């Protein structure tokens, strides 16, 4: 069995098939077309079993069980399945006193929201190769965010010592969380094993990628929110039912994220949340950009807008008044300070200034065209394992250039460039003198947990800074002997090691990089190789009853807006403008940072305006092609506005915060809020297609 944290998934279905698209057999052939022809000859007879097609259905007392033996599955990390039910995990938050909270509430709202499952749809489909060498060594190439997780998974599942499993990950053609899961790699290993270890290549077609490999999680949520007469939030109650699909994979951890940050970035003293990962007969879910946050944000931010209306406050002012800040505590009762929390009021103020630059009102009608704006705020902590870590090696070449080795995968986010910049900054050298390979190789690159959660510049970045400091210490130590001074008298920069007080006196790094050779040939010292590693510090698990715990190092916060033009005649809309103000801690590469934010916004707008899997009554996916599963295309992009606030996170390299996912988080909520303002009906269901909106207005059942 495979799967993490809960081992509930056989690589090929055993006894029963739990979702449409689940792999049932493997064919190995010399040519793809031959394999296809052979696959057509496999006859499978299926007995139709009752299916569970939504998280709500799955929780009914008479619901069929997707997994009968939940108690038997092996567990890694924290996970609490409830045997005899379809609950793969339940996470609780109990903070403050709910009775008191509700007693102090003058206004309350109660809403339900629904986000269906959708797809990552990275342009490169998932693919892998596997080969088992005669000596037992296993070599895999995989388009993955988690080469080291693959290494471990193959090692444990097939009893191969860890060092005998070698994983190479070249540049990956987009992944957005979808390639953090391990799936094809097991199959490729098994296929190679079946043919005596020959190299086997396994590539998903687009159709298979969409139905067989893990997808973006869905959510059914119920939320009740209360505030005082003048708009101070008093209490919040959440039931999050994440649609984990047929196997739990990272859905379990996403349900935890759904609890940890359930309130959004607001000060609420009394919080009650049950966040569940629920089994259904849908495709199974894995991490998706934002990791549970776009979903939880949709729930809380829809409720915030409705509550603001009740109180009679401007939606942005209402958020400003309740913005969480230093001295407050998170739902898991972590005390917040200026370092572990970005500056939300500042983000809101900047967003307000942007909204005000355009003199036209935020709601305007011209005949059958209605222009309206929706806003929202977000926050996100990383929900990483308490021991997530990374290593780095900085090795000097004889000419003073540097090779940087680390395990962060390049998936288009620019990590390997940004990491090179961090190193160049610390070594005070031209970044063009640093070489970093595009590919990650587990046998030579130091370990990195996995490239997810916008954590690479933090974890790997910290490891690199430590490696740089180690190298600097070596350079200074050696130069001190030659220059007859103390290492503390020296500085490194511009390709030299020199005396702080007399910068003209010093040595070129190339004279030291592989040891220093005196005129008589005697050499002291040897190759300068800096090493560094870093692991998450002071994180804790959650208390099972109250949720108390420290689940990540810091929160990135931000405020977003979307402006739409709604056509009342045609029931269509155009997205005119979209804005994100995010507290990035420190912007390392401005062009990359903007690209990450707008790219994520684009994905968020695409996903909330049109993306969803459609199922038939038996649970089969009806739209597993890009022509039926629509994505945003060139020409549909709104005007984007991005701005940054910089409140340093003290534990991070140069104070930076994660920003890779964050542009996406509030887009669904801001879009729904803008369309709600435009249409006058509460839109609590994604995707926001003209059809959904029409149904909400005319056919609310």
């Amino acid at each position: 069995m495979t799967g993490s944290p809960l081992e509930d998934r056989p690589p090929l279905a055993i006894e029963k098939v739990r979702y449409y698209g689940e792999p049932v057999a493997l064919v190995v052939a010399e040519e793809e077309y031959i394999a296809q022809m052979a696959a057509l000859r496999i006859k499978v007879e299926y007995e139709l079993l009752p299916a569970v097609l939504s998280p709500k259905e799955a929780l009914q007392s008479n619901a069929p069980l997707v997994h009968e033996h939940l108690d038997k599955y092996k567990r890694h990390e924290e996970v609490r399945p409830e045997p005899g039910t379809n609950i793969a995990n339940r996470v609780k938050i109990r903070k403050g006193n709910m009775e008191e909270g509700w007693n102090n509430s003058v206004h309350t709202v109660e809403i339900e929201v629904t986000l269906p499952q959708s797809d990552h749809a990275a342009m490169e489909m998932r693919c892998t190769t596997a080969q088992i060498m005669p000596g037992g060594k296993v070599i895999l190439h995989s388009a993955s965010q988690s080469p080291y997780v693959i290494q471990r998974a193959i090692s444990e599942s097939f009893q191969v010592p860890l060092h005998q499993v070698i994983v190479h990950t070249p540049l990956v053609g987009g992944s957005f969380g979808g390639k953090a899961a391990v799936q094809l790699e097991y199959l490729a290993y098994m296929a190679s094993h079946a043919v005596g270890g020959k190299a086997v290549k396994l590539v998903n077609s687009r159709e298979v990628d969409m139905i067989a490999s893990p997808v973006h999680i869905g959510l059914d949520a119920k939320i009740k929110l209360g505030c005082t007469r003048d708009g101070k939030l008093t209490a919040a109650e959440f039931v999050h039912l994440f649609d984990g699909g047929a196997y739990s994979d990272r859905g379990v951890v996403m349900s935890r994220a759904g609890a940890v940050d359930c309130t959004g970035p607001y000060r609420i003293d009394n919080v009650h949340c049950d966040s569940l990962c629920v089994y259904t007969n849908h495709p199974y879910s894995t991490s998706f950009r934002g990791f549970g946050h776009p979903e939880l944000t949709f729930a809380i931010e829809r409720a915030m807008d409705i509550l603001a209306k009740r109180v009679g406050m401007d939606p942005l002012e209402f958020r400003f008044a309740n913005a969480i800040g230093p001295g407050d505590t998170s739902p898991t009762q972590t005390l917040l300070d200026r370092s572990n929390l970005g500056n939300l009021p500042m983000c809101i103020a900047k967003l307000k200034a942007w909204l005000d630059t355009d003199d036209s009102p935020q709601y305007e009608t011209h005949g059958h065209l209605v222009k309206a704006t929706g806003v929202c705020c977000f926050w996100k902590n990383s929900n990483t394992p308490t021991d997530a870590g990374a290593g780095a090696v900085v090795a000097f070449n004889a000419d003073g250039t540097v090779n940087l080795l680390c395990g962060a995968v390049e998936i288009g986010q620019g990590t390997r460039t940004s990491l090179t910049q961090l190193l160049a900054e610390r070594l005070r050298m031209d970044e063009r003198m640093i070489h970093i390979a595009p590919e990650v190789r587990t046998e030579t690159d130091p370990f990195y947990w996995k490239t997810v959660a916008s954590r690479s510049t933090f974890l790997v970045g910290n490891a690199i800074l430590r490696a740089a400091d180690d190298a600097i210490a070596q350079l200074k130590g050696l130069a001190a002997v030659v220059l007859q001074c103390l290492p503390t008298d020296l500085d490194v920069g511009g390709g030299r090691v020199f005396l702080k007080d007399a910068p003209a006196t010093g040595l070129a790094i190339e004279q030291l990089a592989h040891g220093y050779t005196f005129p008589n040939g005697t050499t002291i010292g040897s190759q300068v190789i800096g090493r560094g590693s870093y692991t998450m510090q002071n994180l804790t698990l959650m208390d099972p009853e109250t949720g108390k715990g420290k689940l990540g190092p810091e929160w990135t916060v931000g405020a977003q807006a979307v402006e739409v033009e709604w056509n009342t005649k045609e029931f269509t809309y155009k997205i005119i403008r979209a804005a994100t103000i995010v507290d990035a801690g420190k912007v390392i590469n401005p062009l990359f940072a903007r690209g990450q934010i707008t790219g994520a916004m684009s994905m968020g707008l695409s996903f909330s305006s049109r993306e969803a899997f459609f199922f038939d009554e038996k649970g089969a996916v009806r739209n597993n092609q890009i022509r039926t599963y629509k994505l945003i295309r060139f020409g549909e992009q709104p005007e984007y506005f991005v701005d940054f606030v910089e409140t340093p996170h003290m534990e991070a390299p140069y104070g930076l915060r994660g920003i890779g996912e964050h542009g996406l988080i509030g887009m669904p909520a801001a879009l729904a809020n803008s369309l709600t303002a435009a249409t006058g009906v509460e839109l609590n269901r994604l995707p926001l297609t003209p059809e959904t909106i029409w149904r909400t207005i005319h056919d609310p059942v």
Partner: protein
Amino acid sequence: MTLPPPAMYPVACEVNGEKRLVRVRAADILLSTLRDQLGLTGSKPGCENGDCGACTILVDGLPVKSCLMLTVEAEGKQLTTIEGLKNSPVQHAFVRYQAFQCGYCTPGFIMNCEGLRNAHPHADEETIRVWLESNICRCTSYEEIQHAVRDVFTPKT
């Protein structure tokens, strides 16, 4: 089960200015021939049925989705893949405007733009939009690509 060896057909064409001769099955698509036989992996499969544009190449100067063309149809044609471009203004503009992240869609976008330059050297915004609608990028916001392409089609003084 053993299959009889498939009938193979010779196809002669010019790829990136070089004469090439390949032997293919009648059912082989051009995208696979380019990638698997000729080692030109710059053209990418994103859907293999014409929906994404990642496989776009130039055939006699005009963009074609190579997943929708049979290799046998390439007989006597001039093909240009991304490997056949060097320092083109479109490539430069894509770099300058950071018009890619993972880069998977980029060869298709660039080849489509090259075709557009051949067909409409003075393309206006609307023509650009209609042409580029056929390619999908999942990483960028398209804004960057728009800036790059706009730059290419802006007359330089």
